[in-house]
């Protein structure tokens, strides 16, 4: 069973389909039923021999119109299709409108674009880079007018070191395209510059037309020198923009592009200068700071700090020395004391005393010994006395023995040899002495 749609569903579906199918259309036709609302929006019907379509041109898009449209005008429109659901109608929202002739140009423009695209001339891979530091800048534009002045102003304001070579050309009207193309070739032929600006100021599509000519496109495409296209215009693009290596919205912008890299580097160099300066100053500051903090170190502010370690060592050494000295002194004192004692002990008087004492002792012991001995001797003697008495000569005499003595001497004659013939002798006998003379001597 087929789904049942609401009117709105169907209308929205149509809207989606149509609007996405025709987002951008260029079409030509004749204006009829022209009406301007008080709002400023323009309403009309575009028709040809067999068909018609409603169009609206909002106020915002009317300011580029050369004049107010009227019924019967042949126009070329750039528009998009919209569906208006409340009325169930479709209409064209007109973006741009060109009057007859111009419409043809727009078509030509789009055709040429397609052709060039097909040829591959618009390929991004073919775009040449701009020179970084161009010295000579070629310009293809009119010698009169604001454009060349604008370019010179921009280039001179930023740099003093640039050569600008102008190839003066007609930029509109009959023969302009040929002149422009030729100028581009001339720059290439004589290698007159590093980069080329081709352009003119704003104007109508007709005015700008030379920049949409194939001959210019070809010259730009074949240029060995990088080309900047700078065409002030109302349409989306010019052919020269598309073929050029870079497009600039205005000639001044083109000039900025040319020196962009250079001024970028100048800026970078200035930045570099600031950075190195900043770095070196920072580094110096840092070292200075460190130096200052070193200066504040106690070693520098108070030199004795430097010595304190040694002072401590010295103190310590002194202390130890003192201890050692004290100890040694004490020892020596003690030694001395001992020696004194010894010395005192060795004093002569004392020695004498002690010797005396010893002597007395010896004396005593001698006496004791002597007495003992004496006693012993006495005893011995006493024992001898009886013995001696027993051998006493008187006792012998009593027993009949006599002792001879010389006449005048008292020592006894002990041997016959002491006797001489006729000598007088005395005879000690018991009871008295008798005198005798030696008559005879007989030796044994």
């Amino acid at each position, binding site marked *: 069973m087929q789904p049942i749609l609401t009117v709105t569903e169907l209308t929205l579906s149509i809207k989606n389909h149509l609007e996405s199918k025709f987002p951008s259309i260029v079409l030509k036709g004749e204006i009829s039923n022209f009406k301007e609302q008080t709002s400023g929006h323009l309403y009309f019907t575009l028709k040809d021999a067999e068909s018609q379509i409603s169009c609206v041109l909002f106020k915002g898009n009317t300011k580029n119109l050369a004049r107010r449209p009227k019924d019967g005008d042949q126009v070329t429109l750039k528009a998009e299709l919209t569906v208006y659901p409340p009325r169930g109608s479709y209409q064209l929202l007109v973006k741009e409108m060109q009057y007859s002739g111009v419409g043809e140009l727009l078509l030509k423009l789009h055709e040429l674009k397609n052709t060039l695209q097909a040829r591959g001339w618009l390929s991004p891979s073919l775009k040449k880079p701009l020179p970084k*530091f161009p*010295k000579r800048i070629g310009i293809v534009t009119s*010698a*009169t007018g604001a454009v*060349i002045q604008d370019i*010179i102003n921009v280039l*001179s304001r930023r*740099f*003093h*070191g*640039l*050569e*600008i*070579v*102008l*190839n*003066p050309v007609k930029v509109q009207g009959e023969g302009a395209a*040929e*002149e422009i193309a*030729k100028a581009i070739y*001339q720059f290439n032929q*004589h290698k*007159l510059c590093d980069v080329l600006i081709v352009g003119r100021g704003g104007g109508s599509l007709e005015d700008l037309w030379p920049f949409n000519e194939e001959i210019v496109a070809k010259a730009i495409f074949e240029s060995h020198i990088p080309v900047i296209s700078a065409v002030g215009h109302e349409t989306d693009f010019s052919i020269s923009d598309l073929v050029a290596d870079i497009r600039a919205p205005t000639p001044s912008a083109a000039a900025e592009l040319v020196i962009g890299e*250079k001024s970028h*580097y*100048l800026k970078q*160099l200035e930045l*570099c*200068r600031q*950075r*190195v*300066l900043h*770095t*070196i100053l920072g*580094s*110096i500051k840092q*070292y200075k700071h460190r130096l200052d903090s070193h200066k504040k170190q106690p070693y520098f502010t108070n030199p004795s700090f430097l010595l304190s370690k040694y002072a401590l060592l010295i103190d310590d050494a002194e202390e130890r020395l003192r201890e050692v000295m004290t100890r040694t002194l004490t020892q020596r004192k003690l030694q001395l004391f001992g020696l004194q004692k010894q010395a005192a002990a060795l004093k002569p008087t004392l020695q004498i005393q002690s010797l005396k004492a010893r002597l007395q002792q010896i004396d005593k012991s001698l006496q004791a010994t002597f007495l003992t001995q004496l006693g012993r001797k006495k005893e011995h003697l006493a024992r001898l006395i009886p013995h001696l008495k027993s051998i006493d000569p008187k006792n012998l005499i009593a027993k009949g023995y006599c002792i001879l003595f010389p006449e005048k001497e008292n020592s006894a004659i002990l041997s016959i040899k002491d006797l001489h013939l006729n000598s007088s002798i005395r005879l000690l006998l018991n009871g008295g002495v008798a005198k005798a003379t030696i008559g005879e001597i007989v030796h044994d």
Partner: protein
Amino acid sequence: MIENETFETSYARLEVILEKMNSGKVALDESLKLYEEADRLISSCTKRLNDAEQKIEILMKQRNGDLALNESGQPQTENFATQKRSL
């Protein structure tokens, strides 16, 4: 900067110096030397960028639109300002 050094090599050297100086690993003496070198490089690079005389010329053309050439076949130019005054 030695004469035959390109702008690019000088500039690259400058970047190396900057990186070195910013690394903070360079002794003061060396960083002073680097600074001097950088200063020289910056000056010479800047000079190189500005190193040309400002000239604004306009190509002289014949009636038929061809360039007017001198005897050696080079296009003839005149000072654009002069030309402007004459207008």
